[in-house]
Each structure stands twice: as C-alpha cells, then as structure tokens.
C-alpha cells in the first residue's frame, strides 16, 4: 500500500509565522482556491556515493517540492490560493496503474513524478487528463517516441547535458576524446548521447573503452594503493585531449582524475559535469534559493531537488496567472508566451511546444566551482539559442505531445 504523508512538515517555523502575519490582508478562507500537488516516488535502495564527501540523501527531490510549496503559499496568500503537497511513495509490489487511477478518481490532477522511465510512462498512461512533471528520468526516448501529451519534463534530457558539455569542449578546442563507459544500461545511454553530441559539435572520439571491473566495496582502508596501479594501466590511450566518462551510478569515474597515464582532463558524469543544478551555483540570485533550501533541508540542494522545486513553481506560476487549478487550463497557459519561469539561470525558462521539455541552460561544473554555462557563445539558433541543446524540433520523434 502507498503511504500518504501530508507535507505539513514542509512548513518550517518561519514560513508559518510569515503566513500567519499575512492573514490580516487575506481573503477569507472560504474563497480560497485549493491546489493539491501530488508527489510520486518509489521506495528504493539508496545508492552510496563513491566519495565519502557526498551523503546519501533520503528525501532527495521531495525537499525541493516542499520549498516551492512554501514559496507558492506566500504568493497564494496574497491571491487567495492555497497549496497542499501530498507525497505518495510506491512500494515495489504496488500496481502503479491502479494506484494512480485511484488518485485521479479522488480528484488529483497535478503530479510530480520522481520516477524512472517505465514507472513514469505507467503514470502518464493511467492519468491521461492530468498534468505530470518529470523531475528525474533523463531518457531522450521519453521526449521522443514515448512522449505523452500530459507529460512535461523539467529535468534536462541526456542529450541536453551532453550537448552542453560538447559545446564547451568544442569552444575550448579540446576535440580529441576518449570515451570510457561503465557496465550499466544508463552508462551506455550516456555514452550514446555523448557520441551524438560529438558528431554535432565536431569532436573526434579517438578511442572507446569499457570499464568492466566489479565495483567491490566502496569503503576500504587502503584502496588508493591498488588504484594507483590499476588506473594508469587502464588509461594507456591514444593521443587525446580529454577523457569523457559515462558512469551514471558513480562506480568508478571518480577514480580517474589525477591517476591517469597522461595528465588530461576528465569530464562527463564525473570531473567536469554538465548539470542543471549544483551547490556552487550562485549567479543570477541563486544564492537566495540555496540559502532558503539549506535552512529548510539542512543539506545542499541536489539536481532532483531543483527539478522538483521548478516543477512546483511552474504549477504555482500557472495558478497565479489563471486562478485555476485545472490541468487543461494550466497546460495551455504554460505553453503560451505568457509563461516565463524565473529559475536562477539568467534567462526566462519556457517549455518546448513539441515535446514538453523545459528549455534551460546547462551548468558545466567542476566539483567545487561552476566553470561555464552552455549554450556557448557562437552556437546560434534561429529561435532560441537554448534550442541548440538536445533534440530540436525538426529532429524530434515526438508526435503525441
């Protein structure tokens, strides 16, 4: 059975006081428009990061939605809109189709999907008239062949990420690339996406090599000795400028920097990483949201937290501008030119009308600092330079959005 957690916890003391203080200027409670946002996720084993510096996050994503609900509530308090966040955690044995149909029958229309590809598609097909915001699955196929009319993608696709990285490598003229791929399907997806980007931005993949060794224990007392032997022998590559690593489950990529046979840069899923959020991002007013989040969650904001925050804010913006909590009205508003989300990226964020993907710049970051933001200068586009990232309209295989 799904456990239902009302998100009253999300209101930190400050927000409560704030809302209470505003009550004097509010419309009376009976005129309130109620907006319920349902956060869907699954019970799953947490992945232990390779670096001891990164912590296992139990409430990844959810905290971002809670922060945005608090943000929405503040705006809503001036407009007579009340926001409720409910969190539904599917267990492995749950029939998602059935559960979602029950939620829809109960009046739910607005979902945030913190789900993998197949679960997301199941939700989309169980709730055709709802609005679903994907905050996790990066698969390009969800934006192409498997796209759905009711599904918007906040998280950037893999192709947007690898295009963002490839543009920077191209701009730096680091054009000779070795591609190292891990043993998981997602690693292959990342590698395939990078190859597509390499063709687009004239990078040359001089060599490909799989990383096949079993990860073994993540914590050992003297692991660096063996790595100091293994990595140099593994990295006897042809002449190259950069090693791009495809390791989405964080099994080995972190081992490569500083240990390779030649002193080259590591980029991809580790090292220099294309992402849509990072703890070092402070530009365009981002300091404020980083601080607000830290106060609420007692940790740094992850990519998924940011996506869930943005998804919930998209709903908030839609409700503010339409005074409606209905999926159909919100859908047409957020696809109209009236919609512009302020997402601390220096440009307005809008949706692609051919597949529901949020247009956004990609941050390209090192472990401790933002390095650059793509699109890079000189990569032009007739509509929006942001559309140089990912599958563009003429390339799109989406016909159901």
């Amino acid at each position, binding site marked *: 059975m799904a456990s239902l957690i009302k998100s009253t916890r999300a209101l930190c003391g400050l927000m409560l006081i704030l809302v209470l203080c505003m009550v004097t200027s509010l419309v009376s409670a009976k005129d309130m428009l109620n907006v319920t946002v349902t956060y869907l996720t699954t019970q799953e084993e947490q992945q232990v990061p390779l670096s001891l510096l990164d912590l296992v996050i139990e409430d990844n994503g959810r905290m971002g939605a809670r922060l945005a609900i608090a943000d929405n509530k503040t*705006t809503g308090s001036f407009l007579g809109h009340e926001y409720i966040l409910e969190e539904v955690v599917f267990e492995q044995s749950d029939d998602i189709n059935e559960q979602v149909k029950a939620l829809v029958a109960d009046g739910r229309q607005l979902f945030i999907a913190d789900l993998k590809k197949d679960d997301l598609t199941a939700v989309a097909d169980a709730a055709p008239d709802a609005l679903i915001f994907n905050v996790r699955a990066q698969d390009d196929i969800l934006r192409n062949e498997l796209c759905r009319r009711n599904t918007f993608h906040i998280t950037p696709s893999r192709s947007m990420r690898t295009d963002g990285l490839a543009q920077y490598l191209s701009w730096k003229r680091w054009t000779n690339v070795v591609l190292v791929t891990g043993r998981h399907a997602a690693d292959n997806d990342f590698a395939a996406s990078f190859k597509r980007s390499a063709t687009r931005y004239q990078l040359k993949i001089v060599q490909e090599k799989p990383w096949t060794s079993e990860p073994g224990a993540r914590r050992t007392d003297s692991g660096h000795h063996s790595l100091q032997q293994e990595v140099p022998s593994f990295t006897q590559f042809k002449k190259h400028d950069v090693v791009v690593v495809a390791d989405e489950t964080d099994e080995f990529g972190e081992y490569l920097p500083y240990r390779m046979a030649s002193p080259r840069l590591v980029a991809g899923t580790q090292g220099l990483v294309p992402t849509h959020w990072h703890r070092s991002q402070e530009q365009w*007013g981002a300091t404020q949201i980083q601080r607000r989040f830290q106060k609420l969650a007692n940790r740094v904001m992850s990519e998924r937290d940011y996506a869930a925050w943005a998804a919930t804010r998209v709903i908030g913006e839609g409700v*503010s501008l339409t005074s409606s909590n209905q999926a159909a009205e919100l859908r047409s508003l957020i696809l109209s030119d009236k919609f512009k989300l*302020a997402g601390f990226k*220096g440009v307005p964020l809008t949706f692609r009308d051919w597949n529901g993907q949020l247009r956004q710049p990609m941050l390209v970051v090192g472990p401790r600092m933002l390095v650059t933001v793509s699109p890079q200068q000189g990569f032009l586009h007739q509509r929006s330079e942001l559309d140089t990232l990912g599958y563009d309209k003429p390339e799109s295989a989406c016909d159901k959005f």
Partner: protein
Amino acid sequence: MLFKQLKAPIEQRRFAVVVVLLFLQIFAGKSYAYKIYVSNEKDNTISVIDGESLAVIETIPVGERPRGIVLGKEDKYLYMCTSDEDHVEVLDLATGKVIDSLPSGPDPELMAMDNTGNLLYIANEDDNMVTVVNIAEKRKLEEIPVGIEPEGIGLSPDGKWLVNTSETTNMAHFINTETLKIEANVLVDTRPRVAQFTADGKEVWVSSEIGGTVSVIDAESKEIKTKINFEVRGLRPESIQPVGVKLSSDGSNKAYIALGPSARVAVVDMESYEVEKYLLVGPRVWNLEFSPDQKFLFTTNGVGGDVSVIDLKKQRVIKSVKVGRLPWGVAVTQ
C-alpha cells in the same frame, strides 16, 4: 577666534585672509561640482567620481558586497547595503571613512530614505521582510512580512506609500507607511526588480527582469495601466532584462530603463509609453541615476566594470568611466 585674529598684527591678519580665501575657494569648488558614488559589489569598495572631470577621484574600502546605496540629508553620509555583512554601513563623506553601521535584517539589498531623512526602508532579500530603521536611534522599528525575495523599494513623493517588489512572488506590494501594513498586491511579470514613482505620484513603474517588461501601475487604483515591451533588432529577447528605472521630473517626460545583459538603456516617452531609442552602454547594465540638473544619466555596467555617462540632451553616451569589479548601485550628490 576670528575676533582675536582681527586684533592681531597686520601680517597675521593678511595671512588669515589668505587662508579664508583659499578655504572659500576650495569650498566653492567642492560645492559646485557634484559627485557620483558607485558601489562595487565584487571589490567591496565605493568609487567616487567627480561630476566635473568625470574621473574617479577616490576608491573607498567598505564592508562585504555593497549593493544598494542612498545619500542622507545634505549629502553628509552615504548609507550602503553591505549585503554579506547583514547590516547597513554609514560612510562619512567628509572623511571618506565608514563610521557606523545600522541594523538592517539579513541580506539587505535595496533601500529608500523617507522625506525627513530619519527612516530607511530596507528590502531583506533572504528573509522575506521589509525592515524599517530609525537612523538616529539606530533601531529597527518594524519588520513587514512581504513576498519571497524582496527587492525593489519605491517611495511615493508624499511619503505615504512604499512599493516593494518580491522577485519570486512576482508582486508589487503597496505598503501604507503610516500603518506599515500591505494594502494592495499587484501581480506583475516575472522577477520584478525596481519600483519607481513618477514625480506627481500618480504612477509606479515596476521593471520585470525575466518577464522582460515594465509595468506602469496607476497608484490610485493599484491597477496596471500598461506594460512596456522592448525589442532590439539582432538581440535575443532573453537578453533584454529590465532592471533599473529612472523617471525624469524636469518636464522632458522621459523614462530611462536599464536592460541588463543586452547592454542597452531604453528611452521611453512617459505619455505615449513608446520606446523612442536604445542607447548602447555596457553589459549587465543595472542601476541608473541622474545628475542634479538631470542633464546627465549615469549607469552602472556590472560585467563591463564601468559607468557610462549619457548626455540626455544629445541622447548620447559621451563617456565610460572605469570603476571597480561588478559596479551595482549609484547615487549622486546635489
């Protein structure tokens, strides 16, 4: 002292007269030329530009991350939101030294001074508050809860209304300065920044950075009269991000809007609300201020690291003055 000097021998008297004359000359020179103060967000300094020569004559170290700056009564002090210090610092303009600090609430960004010069209204970007501070008593009088990320602060000419913008809530809040309560909330376009009243108090102009527009709000009805859009040929619409707003009061009926990354200042007719011209300044142009006679406009160009000087009669940029890194706020003495 003067009496004694008059009674002193001739030589001494003559010397005293020379001293007085010299003093008068310096004094006259000083009062004749105005000065432009610019806060450099990255350098933690204030650049002082001489209004006559348009050269930087002094660079004064201040607290961390100076942003919004306001001149006090008779231009004796400059009040500065030193955001990362979580207070407002007071710069004595006679000595060029920071002499005091005022409580401001966390992360002060922009502020306005009331007509009496006794109160500061400060937007606390991190804390969803507008703080009212009594300057003489160095005391917070009130904290007014507003929307998320309060930013712009505009005071009506009669001092009765304070308009505060909140960046994530996308609103202009009308606060009654007598009761310090919000009386109206106007939904504007995304990420509102600066709010400015017209000299007659009838309109409030609010810039929306991400929305790319300026909303003109009727101060009486609290409704949006019109929205001004901007379009520069050859520039992506995303790069046009209105921030600073300055409304003339010299009868020329012109408004000036700083358009951020597009490196342009728009000249708008305040009657027809038509954009007449775009002037090229420097990238990330943020804030604007007039010279006392409104013949010149000074712009802070963040990425460019300079201040552009616009001759308003010719409607032309006549000079660029290099200042510190990330110039942010600007204030001009009378």
